């Protein structure tokens, strides 16, 4: 319960940072997707189950803070990316440094790009290919810079409120 509350708090703080603080540090108008980054970090640390569980509130929060896209679009993207990264985690060596970097990059690129494609289909007909590729590239590079911080936050949450493995195994 405490763990859920803590994760909720982390998500809300990240969402607030994303809408209030990051826009002033935007690179050519694009900002990294902090909540997606957190979902990927949870997937890398705790696996697919936690990632999928975190992805739902994170996606809902993103959708509620944006206004053009239909509700649920980010949920779709986050859940997919979270599961994908989490499912690949058992095949990574735990000491590897490059693997998390690669997964953060691939996850962010696919996540932001996928969101762009969905919004081109559903919300904004003029979200062009150029715009989508630009946004995903900038967001990926930006996410790589912020990835150590996101992983540290997730590790902190895990240390303070350890994942209850016995509950998960039931």
């Amino acid at each position, binding site marked *: 319960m405490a763990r859920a509350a803590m994760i909720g708090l982390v998500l809300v703080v990240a969402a607030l940072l994303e809408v209030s603080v990051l826009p*002033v540090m935007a690179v050519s108008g694009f900002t990294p997707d902090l909540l997606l980054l957190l979902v990927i970090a949870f997937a890398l640390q705790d696996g697919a189950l936690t990632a999928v569980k975190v992805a739902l509130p994170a996606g809902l929060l993103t959708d509620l803070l944006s206004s053009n896209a239909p509700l649920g679009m980010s949920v779709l993207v986050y859940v997919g990316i979270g599961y994908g990264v989490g499912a690949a985690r058992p095949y990574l060596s735990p000491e590897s440094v490059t693997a998390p970097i690669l997964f953060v990059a691939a996850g962010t690129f696919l996540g932001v790009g996928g969101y762009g494609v969905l919004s081109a289909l559903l919300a904004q007909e003029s*979200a062009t290919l150029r715009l989508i590729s630009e946004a995903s590239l900038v967001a990926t590079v930006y996410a790589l810079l912020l990835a150590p911080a996101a992983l540290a936050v997730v590790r902190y949450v895990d240390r303070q409120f350890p994942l209850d493995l016995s509950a998960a195994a039931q």
Partner: protein
Amino acid sequence: MFQRRRARVLLAAFVLLALVLVTVDFRSPQPDSGIGGRLRAGVAVVLGPVQNGLAVIVQPIAEAAGSVTELFSLRQENARLRAQLALVEERRLSYDDVVRENEQLRAQVDMSSRLDLDTAQGQVIAQGASNFEWTATINVGSDDGVLRDMAVINGDGLVGRIIATTGSTSRILLAIDPNFGAATRIAESGQVGILSGDGNEPMIFEPLVTEAVVEVGQEVVTSSYSGGTFVPGLPVGVVAAADYEVGQLVRRVEVLPYVNFTSLDLVSVVLDLPEQVDEPLELAPNVEFTPPAVDPVPPEIEPTIPPPLNTATPSPTPSGEA
């Protein structure tokens, strides 16, 4: 193994839930009335004060950071501003005279002064969460008289349009958003057209008359053409590129906005609505045009024999009689 299966089950359940949400929200006819609109308004009410507080802390830092990132473009900007200043100085000489003349003429035709706008001041406290929409949240709302579709300006020009309001906050669709559309005209020539966003800079102006003469450096202002959403005459930007090829069907004129959208801070909501409030331009127009009934059978055209030319002229005599 259990965990992996549970993850898969949860994945399927959440994907299904997301699809249901997307469908329900996508089908709700009015963006404000559906479940999504109400939830978003609720989130805005709850997070509004927090964002308001954050903005107070972030803004000074943003200004400092902004001046660092703008360090490289400062020299260019300085040159541009000097050129602009020279131009303005040149124009200023006759400005006072023109203003006086304008006032007199307006008094004569009993027209209200258009620069006298009633506004509500607000500060940007947050921006859109997604990379594919350009929106901003400000700390004035319906309590201050802000309504949907009102124009938002700042000291430089047009910022955008209000798309949602709560009691104390409202959300602006920035003019650079691809979903933004506004009736505008070239200030110098009066050529009307539709201005729309294109993500980041520049914006796109499509003149209604494709072959209209549009030159680089001309100013674009809002227009009330065909029930435009905005008060006419709000400055938008300058034409940056206006290529035209003969026979082009759609012409895209690039417009550099006056407003710096990356460092929005204080904005004003124009509380005056244009004379006739109409649907915003980007929505599908209400088609009331009914084509005239076409007679399925075309009327028989009687073959007409041209009248004889002139009976007085003697008919050519047969050659045999000559």
